[in-house]
């Protein structure tokens, strides 16, 4: 498709363009534009938030039932099915939309928009969780099955797997933002004690009847290094993270830390601190400051952590009142405040612009230099370019080690 650049003063959605990409840094007004498009469309609109989960009605046990309930016609429902099947994700139709992984939820939400017969779809940074196979084709595939226009914001718009679009709107930084930039220099130099983690013959699944089984025959993770966990949507990346932190019980195998076998299920977060993919799953206090202090951040380091992660908000603010991009940063800050030797970050760059992504990479390298072990789950190619990390590939639940990720991508 021929990309046609529109100025920011143009109409937010060109009537001739089936797909429009909003480019710009954080706080450039992309979300506000998308909300305006959705509001103008009224009942013909369909909005997908960055955390996607709000796109589902919550009254249907499966995605298929959701389509039964809300499709505008049998043809629209069939188009939605065809769209999902064309991405080889037919299995999600029989699953509860709320239990899907991030990338699967993005596909499910677009399928719902097609079934609903929406004419204007506004998707705010929800394609960042898609893997490298799905991302380049998602918008084309959507346009082929939908009769509506789609406007979307995407922080990974400069990467080579960016979804193709018919037009783009470039939004400059407004200069009036209540958020500061991230600054890795505020991260403390205090050394972090950490031990190697050795995983042997580990298997885990969410349900005994579940077809999906995570299997890690052998994996040795050394402290002071960054590991980049990669794999397709639904390959088990988040599952492995949940086992390591103790939110999911392993079926068999062992996790050895510091020479001793560790039962992570019995002692959750005993060796690992986890930053969830969706910050709303993680933030559970009523004040920003409390999120950090409760996890063990020394009071004299709270302010520097706030500055490091670019959170200029009042410490008394409610985390839920922050925009998604800041909630994500706060969840990272909270994760680093927990004094553990290992940190797992599930999609830490969601909603972050290029400048922030580079700075997050520097923060992680600084943490690794202090001695912490870090595991990053991310589909962002740009982030991988910035990060000096060892790759770990998960395919169909099976784990294998890759080489140096930065060498594979080439720096910057």
């Amino acid at each position, binding site marked *: 498709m021929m990309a046609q650049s529109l100025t920011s003063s143009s109409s937010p959605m060109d009537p001739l363009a089936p797909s429009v990409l909003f480019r710009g840094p954080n706080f450039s007004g992309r979300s506000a534009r998308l909300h305006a498009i959705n509001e103008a469309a*009224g009942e013909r609109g369909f909005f997908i938030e960055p955390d996607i989960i709000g796109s589902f009605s919550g009254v249907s046990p499966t995605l298929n039932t959701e389509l039964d309930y809300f499709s505008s016609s049998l043809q629209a429902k069939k188009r939605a099915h065809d769209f999902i099947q064309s991405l080889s994700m037919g299995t999600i139709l029989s699953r509860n939309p709320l239990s899907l992984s991030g990338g699967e939820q993005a596909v499910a939400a677009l399928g719902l928009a097609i079934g609903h017969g929406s004419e204007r779809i506004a998707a705010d940074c929800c394609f960042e969780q898609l893997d490298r196979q799905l991302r380049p084709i998602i918008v084309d595939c959507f346009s082929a099955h939908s009769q509506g226009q789609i406007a979307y914001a995407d922080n990974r718009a400069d990467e080579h797997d960016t979804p193709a679009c018919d037009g783009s709107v470039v939004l400059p930084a407004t200069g009036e933002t209540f958020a500061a930039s991230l600054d890795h220099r505020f991260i403390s130099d205090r050394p972090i004690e950490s031990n190697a983690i050795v995983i042997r013959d580990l298997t885990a699944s969410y349900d005994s009847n579940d077809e999906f089984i995570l299997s890690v025959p052998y994996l040795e993770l050394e402290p002071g290094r960054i590991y980049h966990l990669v794999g397709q949507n639904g390959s088990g990346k988040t599952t492995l993270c949940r086992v390591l932190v103790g939110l999911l019980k392993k079926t068999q195998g062992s996790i050895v830390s510091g020479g001793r076998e560790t039962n992570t299920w019995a002692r959750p977060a005993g060796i690992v601190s986890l930053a969830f993919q969706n910050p709303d799953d*993680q933030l559970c206090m009523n004040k920003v400051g409390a999120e950090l202090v409760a996890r*063990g951040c020394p009071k004299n380091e709270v302010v520097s952590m706030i500055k490091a992660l670019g959170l200029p908000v009042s410490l008394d603010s409610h985390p839920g009142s922050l925009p998604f991009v800041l909630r994500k940063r706060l969840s990272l800050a909270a994760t680093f405040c927990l004094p553990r030797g290992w940190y797992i970050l599930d999609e830490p760059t969601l909603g972050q612009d290029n400048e922030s992504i580079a700075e997050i990479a520097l923060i992680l390298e600084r943490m690794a230099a202090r001695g912490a072990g870090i595991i990053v789950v991310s589909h962002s190619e740009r982030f991988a370019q910035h990060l000096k990390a060892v790759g770990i590939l998960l395919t169909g639940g099976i784990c294998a080690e890759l080489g140096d990720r930065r060498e594979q991508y080439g720096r910057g």
Partner: protein
Amino acid sequence: MITTSSVRVASGLFVVCGALLARRWHILIPALFGLVIFFLATRQFATLRRCAITMTPIVMMFLGIQLMSRVLSSAQFQTPWLTILRLCTLMLAFSYTTVLFEGQDGAEKLIDLGLKNNGLIIALSAISTLPLMQSTARRITEARFAAGFIGRRSIFATATQLPYILGPLFTQALRLAIARSDTWHQRELSHRLQQNLAVIHRSRRVRSYELLTALLPATWIVFIIVTEFL
């Protein structure tokens, strides 16, 4: 045709009426007996477990209030035990009905009962509230586990987290409910449901054991009225 859904809702309503009318501690027995018969007949132990999970925080909240009021003698909010049992029974019936709805096609059942337009929306909101709070409570608990606030995984350790969970639970559930109401409004939920369910409608004739679950609480109500009021 008497359908499964109407019988289930009727049995839930009977239990609620019984809970409001009964004046003694035996309030729980017939309700539990009826539910156990249902679970044995349908072998829905997973549903029983989910009911228990839903019920636990609510029961513990009431018990916590009760214990606090005993400890703080000056407290003015002492709750009679019968009221607590009554609330528990109400929540059990509500949980029983909504958990079944969540696992199956709740909207379809409500439309079976003749609900439509705003009535349908209100009923759907009601039955989706408990699963919403249940999932929110589970997320907050997991977040607290992942944050290292709960050192060891045990029932006691989890129970001690209850006071910390309630605040964020209600805040987040309210935020989600508001976001959901916007989505429902934009997608014309009520209109679409009624339109589409006319096409995909599939009700099932009631089975004998399901009738029994309605008859038991109905008999119970008659018993209560006879012994307490006449």
